[in-house]
């Protein structure tokens, strides 16, 4: 009995240690990515190429999801608001929900699922087929050439995607609220303008999406770079990317929101 208990505790202890060790490795990885970013600045073409593959290729899923989210918000919002006779506030509801929370968070989750896994798989495969080794032997740092451009591309793409998400969601909400349900056009926009503040809401949402961009891209890059160079290793790494990115985004969202909402 005691033996089993000690074994259990040892298991938990070693797993905890492994997680902490991994966190340290990830922090070192982040540091090196920063240090080797000089190449990305000198050759912006590398970054532009990666922005295409992470940002532009994610546009479709982001925009379609945004449209649906906005529409659902309008429907659900109207359903509740009209019980209190405040159906005019539907514009505010849709706009604030999107700009403050749903824009950054849902975009980050979709980004992790689409672009994050693509990055992890790509880098994991490059490691498995010795392409990264080949680069090292050719005296080119793989972190400078492969990792850093993708990092900056993710950091640039995320806020843009989140902003597009918010805007498209609001349009989706408008489509449902005004032509479909019949809420007054002027009331929709004027209430929104009166209650959505640029500094408090829009800028804060933008800051959130930047932070999420750093987190998701870094996690995707690290998991790919650290993956065991086998088919199974790479596939496990892509799963880890999605799981850890999602948890990180939701956790950071809480931290950031509590900072931003406290006076």
């Amino acid at each position, binding site marked *: 009995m005691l033996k089993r208990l000690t074994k259990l505790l040892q298991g938990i202890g070693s797993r905890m240690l492994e997680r902490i060790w991994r966190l340290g490795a990830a922090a070192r990885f982040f540091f090196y990515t920063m240090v080797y970013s000089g190449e990305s600045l000198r050759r912006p073409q590398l970054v532009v190429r990666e922005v*295409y593959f992470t940002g532009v290729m994610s546009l479709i899923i982001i925009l379609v999801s945004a449209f649906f989210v906005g529409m659902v918000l309008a429907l659900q919002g109207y359903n509740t608001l009209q019980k209190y006779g405040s159906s005019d506030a539907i514009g505010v509801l849709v706009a604030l929900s999107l700009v403050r929370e749903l824009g950054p968070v849902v975009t980050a989750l979709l980004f992790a699922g689409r672009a994050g896994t693509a990055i992890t798989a790509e880098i994991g495969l490059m490691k498995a087929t010795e392409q990264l080794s080949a680069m090292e032997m050719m005296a080119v740092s793989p972190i400078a050439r492969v990792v850093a451009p993708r990092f900056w591309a993710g950091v640039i793409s995320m806020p*843009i995607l989140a*902003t597009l998400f918010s805007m498209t969601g*609001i349009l989706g909400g408008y489509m449902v609220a005004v032509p479909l349900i019949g809420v007054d056009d002027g009331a929709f*926009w004027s209430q*929104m*303008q009166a209650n959505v503040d640029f500094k408090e809401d829009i800028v804060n949402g933008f800051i959130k999406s930047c932070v999420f961009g750093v987190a998701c891209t870094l996690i995707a890059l690290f998991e790919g770079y650290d993956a065991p160079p086998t088919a199974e290793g790479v596939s496990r790494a892509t799963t880890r990317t999605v799981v850890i990115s999602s948890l990180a985004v939701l956790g950071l969202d809480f931290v950031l929101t509590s900072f931003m909402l406290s006076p």
Partner: protein
Amino acid sequence: MERTTIDLWVGIFAAAGLAAMMGLAMKVGNLTTSGIGETYAVTAAFENIGGLKARAPVKSAGVVVGRVDGIQFDTKTYEAIVTIKIDKRYEFPKDTFASIYTSGLLGEQYVGLDAGGDSVPLKNNDKIAHTQDAVVLEKMISQFLYNKASETGDTKSGDKKQVGEK
């Protein structure tokens, strides 16, 4: 993929993002109606500001003419000192009334300015002399109950007199 095609798409992507940001700022947010113009500051003292918060609107005749900038407590007079910033385009006479109203029945509170007739305008860092406090709901209710109670008391004594006179 051709290099130039990639560049084109990334350019469109970035431009779309910028446009969306502009759209959010202009149409959705209140960037156009706040902070753009120059303002001058004016203070007013209230005994009770109710639920007035910083950045609440300042309206005159229903139009937003400024924002509440800050709220302080004066320990000497035990009053609330409210600093409001008024758009430079609008001038108010020195004997303007500043009152705290509530939008709707239970909505947020704002400062209403009723212009007086003085020919001298308010300048930066001037003090509004005439103020009216916010209506506090609890005081209103207790007032209502008190009035109701005294009314029934009067009718009772009235009946008594009639009985007596008989």
